[in-house]
């Protein structure tokens, strides 16, 4: 058996939404192919800190474990990302874990991302097809456009782009890059396009598109490689045209 290699975790913890955060260190035996989640599970199994003191297990959020749901996002060594795909052997040691403080912290590493869902509702990020009778199939979508739209649809509302954005914070009500890009996704869908103006109007409201300061951290940070800044610039063009229509009047065609 090889020598027992130790890995050290420095975790920012917090008892409740209103209590003060504190830092606690943990030391674990190294196992091959560990990721941050399996390390956190190890701590949960044996909640003893690096000084040998027994403590409450660290709380975090997780679900799919394959970087599709976005639930396990946290700040790892200073950068927000999913803890399921953060492999311990590829990280700098000691490994520092913090919650994404852009969101309200519930406990330890678990945050409340419901503001993102509220934003999706605000910008009408869906396609209304409900009615009293079957409307039949919608217009066809070109295959190359579908492939392009698929990239935008990979957004898992993980919150990494909001955490990276300098304009998403307590001083501003900016909804952040993720919901903006969703507007572009639904506006480019052949059926969704029928409600294009409504979504653009919602983006032109307070806390909307205009709050972007072009730091472009979002596109650098997105774990799904979504072209967020391209979406934002394209929406800037669409809303510019929409604002001209609103101002000068339009025959709605």
């Amino acid at each position, binding site marked *: 058996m090889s020598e027992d290699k130790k890995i050290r975790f420095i975790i920012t913890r917090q008892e409740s939404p209103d209590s003060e955060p504190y830092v606690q260190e943990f030391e674990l035996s190294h196992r091959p192919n560990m990721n941050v989640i399996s390390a956190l599970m190890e701590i949960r199994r044996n909640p003893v800190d690096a000084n040998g003191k027994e403590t409450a297990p660290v709380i975090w959020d997780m679900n799919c474990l394959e970087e599709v749901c976005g639930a396990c996002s946290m700040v790892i060594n200073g950068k927000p990302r999913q803890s399921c795909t953060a492999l311990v052997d590829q990280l700098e040691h000691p490994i520092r874990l913090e919650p994404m403080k852009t969101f309200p912290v519930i406990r330890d590493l678990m945050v409340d991302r419901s503001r993102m869902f509220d934003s999706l509702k605000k910008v009408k990020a869906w396609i209304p097809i409900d009615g009293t009778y079957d409307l039949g199939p919608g217009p066809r979508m070109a295959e190359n456009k579908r492939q392009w739209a698929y990239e935008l649809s990979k957004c898992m509302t993980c919150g990494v782009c909001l955490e990276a954005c*300098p304009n998403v914070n307590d001083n501003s009500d900016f909804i952040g890059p993720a919901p903006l890009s969703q507007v572009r996704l639904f506006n480019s869908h052949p059926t969704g396009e029928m409600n294009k103006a409504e979504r653009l109007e919602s983006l032109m409201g307070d806390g909307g598109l205009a709050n972007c300061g*072009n730091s472009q951290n979002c596109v650098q940070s997105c774990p799904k490689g979504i072209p967020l800044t391209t979406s934002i*610039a394209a929406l800037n063009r669409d809303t510019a045209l929409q604002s001209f229509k609103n101002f000068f009047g339009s025959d709605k065609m």
Partner: protein
Amino acid sequence: MAENREFMNRRLHSLLGVIPIGIYLVQHLTVNFFATRGAEAFNEAAHFMETLPFRLFLEIVVIYLPILFHAIYGLYIVFQGKSNTKRYGYFRNWMFLVQRITGVYLVIFIAWHVWETRVQAAMGATVNYDMMADILSSNFMLIFYIIGVLSATFHFSNGLWSFLVSWGITVSPRSQQIATYATVAIFIALSLVGMGALLAFINPDLANI
């Protein structure tokens, strides 16, 4: 319309930075550049600008009101952001921060510059080569002006880049990259013009031409 106030304000802020403020900046630096041809040439150019018809109207509409709006709303934008270049040291994130730092510096610099030149002129002083040579004879003021001019050329060039994005003119990453090169070239060119003029005011050989 009322609920779109933020959208309209941000777009207006972006537009005013280029038209008329950016155009005025280029024109101002060009007139200053006459100083490299000597005191006489600069005084003539400055005198021509001073004697333009409807001077006060032009100043208010083209300069004072746009700059006041741009400065006040700009400060509001600065206080909405929390810079994070330590964590995210990307080029554009640095530009985001430097744009805000130069913006705040320019509010101070321009306020002082207007007090020292335009307000003094209104109170009877003559704005000419000697006035600037006198101001810039102090090393402190020279540095204050060098940083001011470089801040202005940077803020304009980088602001032009984000104007192109904010109005949806450069959408694709490649077009934004090309715009970066173009605005860097504008920054260098305008800075050379601005520095040339500033150094001309402290050149004793040019003072007597």
